C-alpha cells in the first residue's frame, strides 16, 4: 500500500484529507508542521505528500526545499493544498519542486484528479450522470 504524508496544522483538514486518501487506498501519516514532517521523511520517505503552505514552526514551502535536498528526496510526489491560491504562490511552489497544487476548498474529486495527474493513482472512475 502506498503512503501519503498529510501535513497541515488544522486537525480538521488532516481528518478530511485522511478520509479522502484512505478511500484512494493510501496509508496515512500525519504531521502538524513542516519540521515534524521533515523528521518523518528522514526516517522514511512517503510516496506522496499533501502539503499545507502556512504552518507554525516550518511552513510548507520551506519543508519542500528541505525535502528535495534529502537523499532520494526528489522521489515523493508533493501536492500543495492551501488557501494561497494566487498565481505567484503557485509558480513559486512549482519552481521549488511541487508536482501539483490544490487550492482550498477541495473535495474528493479534486484530490483524486490531482493524484491521478501525477501518476499516484490510476484512471479515475467515470463520473456518474
Amino acid at each position, binding site marked *: 500500500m502506498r503512503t501519503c504524508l498529510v501535513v497541515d496544522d488544522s486537525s480538521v483538514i488532516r481528518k478530511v484529507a485522511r478520509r479522502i486518501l484512505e478511500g484512494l487506498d493510501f496509508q496515512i501519516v500525519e504531521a502538524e508542521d513542516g519540521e515534524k514532517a521533515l523528521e518523518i521523511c528522514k526516517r522514511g520517505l512517503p510516496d506522496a505528500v499533501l502539503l499545507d503552505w502556512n504552518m507554525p514552526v516550518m511552513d510548507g514551502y520551506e519543508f519542500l526545499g528541505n525535502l528535495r535536498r534529502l537523499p532520494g528526496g526528489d522521489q515523493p510526489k508533493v501536492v500543495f493544498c492551501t488557501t494561497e491560491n494566487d*498565481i505567484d504562490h503557485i509558480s513559486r511552489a512549482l519552481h521549488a519542486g511541487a508536482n501539483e497544487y490544490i487550492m482550498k476548498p477541495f473535495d474528493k474529486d479534486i484530490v483524486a484528479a*490531482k493524484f491521478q495527474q501525477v501518476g499516484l493513482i490510476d484512471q*479515475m472512475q467515470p*463520473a456518474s450522470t
Partner: protein
Amino acid sequence: MNQLDYEYLRKLLKDHSGLDLSADKQYLIESRLLPLARKASLADIGELVQKLKGGSSIIIRQVVEAMTTNETFFFRDKVPFDHFRESIMPEMIKARANRKNIRIWCAAGSTGQEPYSLAMCVREMNAALGGWRVEIVATDISQEVLEKSKAGIYSQFEVQRGLPIQMLVKYFKQNGEIWQINPDIRAMVQHKQLNLLHDFSQLGVFDIIFCRNVLIYFDQETKIGIFGRLAKIMEPDGFLVLGAAETVVGLTEAFKPFPDRRGLYRPSGTAGVAGKAGAMTWPKVPAIARL
C-alpha cells in the same frame, strides 16, 4: 410527477434531442426541470408540461438544454488525451505533411473543457506544427453551454478537475477565484450550435472526431444513424474517439477499433463515402503521403 407527464417529457426529449430516458428517470427530470419550472413561475412539472403542450419553442429549447447539459472537465478520463498526443497527432502530422492542415471536431463540446484541452495539447506540440493550420470545431446542442465555452471562464473548482497545474499557470489568467483561458487558446476553437440528430455534413470533413459521452444517451437506432453519418464526414485515415462507456462494436461496420488503444476507432473503409467527401473539400493528397 404523474406517469402521463413523464411519458410526454420522454417523447418530447427523444424527438428534439434523441435523449433516450429509461422508464425510471423521474428523479433526473425533477432535479433538472423543477428549477426551470420555478424560474418560469410554474408550480410543478405538471404545469411545465401544460406549457410545453402549448408549443412554445423557447420553453422546449430550455427543457432540452436543461436535460442534455452534462458534466465535463479538463482532460476528462486522461487516456483519450494520451492517445491524442502519442498516437493520433504523430500519425496525422506524418499523413498531412503536404497539406499541413488538421481538422478536429468535438461533437459534444459542452462548456469547452474538451476542445480547450485539445487546443492546449496542440499548442504544446508547436515545435512540430510550425506553419500548420489546426482547426478545432466545438459543437453542442445547447446555446447556453456554447456561450460559456466561448467565454472560457471557469471557477476554481472547474480548473482543478483534470487540468495539470502547469497548464493552469501557462494558459489561464486569474481574476480572484475566476480563471479565464487565454485569448490565443480561445481563438483556436470555433463554436457552432448543432443537434447531432440533424444533418452535420455542412461542417466539412474531419481528420479527428471526439464524440464522447453523448451517444450513451441515444437509443441503438439513433447511434447507428450517427455512426453512419460520422463516417461520411471523416477522412479514410481519420480517428474517432468515443467515451469510456461507448463502442461501435455490434452497432456499425463503418468504424473498427484501433488495436490496443481503448476508445479509439478508425473508419473501416466500408462506408465508402469518406474519400469522395474529402476530395470535394481538399486537394487530393497522393496515397503515399499518408504513409
